[in-house]
């Protein structure tokens, strides 16, 4: 909406503004997206620099949260390994809808320098969870990250809530279809895995407690 940015007084009258609820909701959502603080590798150091005085990420309204329950989007900043894969899925599932994923850096996009010989590296976090914005770079410059953040904000602010399909252009519709398809695929896969997991012999234990059990057997 951009009203708060203007210093002159564009609206004459008694302060009544006409607009849609959709715009208001989207404006609120896009300008205060909180992210899950989740550093993985080298990109996390660049990410710390983003939060510090020089780049000051909070001016975009992005505030770090340490719990996935309070976060709007998750920034996967770094190399995702197979040992970490289950944890990332768990974190993503703990976030409440609507949730978004930003993949930061080459490693999270495609496996980065480890794409060929990394036997323990997931070649792209989009094999685990659906990704909305990819930021390239190894590690991305802070400016590149901001571009990605602005892209995400734009995506959120133009999301149609009411009468979605009628108002969207063909390109946006295709993009939305793709996103929905990715999320649907993810949900189906997650449900399938859940069934497999509960049918396995370790019923009643989470994957975390399984590690404890393994440890108890060995020691």
């Amino acid at each position, binding site marked *: 909406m951009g009203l708060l940015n203007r210093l002159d007084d564009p609206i004459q009258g008694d302060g009544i503004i006409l607009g849609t609820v959709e715009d208001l909701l989207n404006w609120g959502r896009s300008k205060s997206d909180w992210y899950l603080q989740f550093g993985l590798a080298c990109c996390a150091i660049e990410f710390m620099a983003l939060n510090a005085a020089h780049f000051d990420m909070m001016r975009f309204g992005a505030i770090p949260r340490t719990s996935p329950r309070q976060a709007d989007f998750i920034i996967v900043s770094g190399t995702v390994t*197979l040992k970490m894969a289950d944890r990332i899925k768990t974190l993503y599932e703990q976030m409440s809808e609507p949730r978004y994923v930003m993949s930061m850096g080459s490693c999270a996009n495609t496996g980065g320098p480890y794409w060929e010989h990394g036997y323990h590296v997931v070649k792209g976090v989009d094999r685990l969870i659906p990704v909305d914005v990819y930021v390239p770079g190894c590690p991305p410059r802070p400016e590149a990250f901001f571009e990605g953040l602005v892209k995400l904000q734009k995506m959120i602010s133009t999301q149609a809530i009411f009468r979605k399909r009628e108002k969207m252009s063909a390109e946006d519709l295709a993009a939305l279809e793709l996103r929905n398809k990715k999320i649907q695929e993810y949900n189906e896969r997650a449900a399938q*895995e859940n069934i497999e997991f509960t049918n396995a012999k370790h019923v009643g234990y989470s994957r975390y407690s399984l590690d404890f059990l393994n440890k108890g057997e060995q020691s």
Partner: protein
Amino acid sequence: MTANEIYEKLKSEFGDEIISLTEDAANEAFIVVKPQRIVEICLVLRDDPNFKFDYMANLTGMDYPNNLTVVYHLYSIPLNHRIVLKVELNKENPSVESVEKVWKTANWHEREAYDMFGIIFENHPFLVRILTPYDWEGHPLRKDYKEPETYHGVKIAY
């Protein structure tokens, strides 16, 4: 102490257990010993006032075509000298006594050597995988290692 002096002194104490000393320009000096009495040798190296190798810098495995080798890099902080020990193990049954009770730092190094090469360290307090997941199969740093297709349903190859 130079490597030669260390070798002579070990040789006089342990005899046949000490196999050879290699000292040339291309390599750092290393001593090859038999695996049977490695803990006693290490205890002497640590406690003898002439040696005082109180600091284990590194322990690692090696996969040579004929054998698996454990390499010990030792350093003495008070006397400022270094030595490298090598123990050669056969590939069928690679096991050697753990030196964890000599240098505590060997604990994690040995776990890593087990994880990466499958070398068994006997009497190790907690010999489980350290870097790869606990249910990982195979030992990645062996030369004949083939990476698995999938792990927990995630495709590994690019």
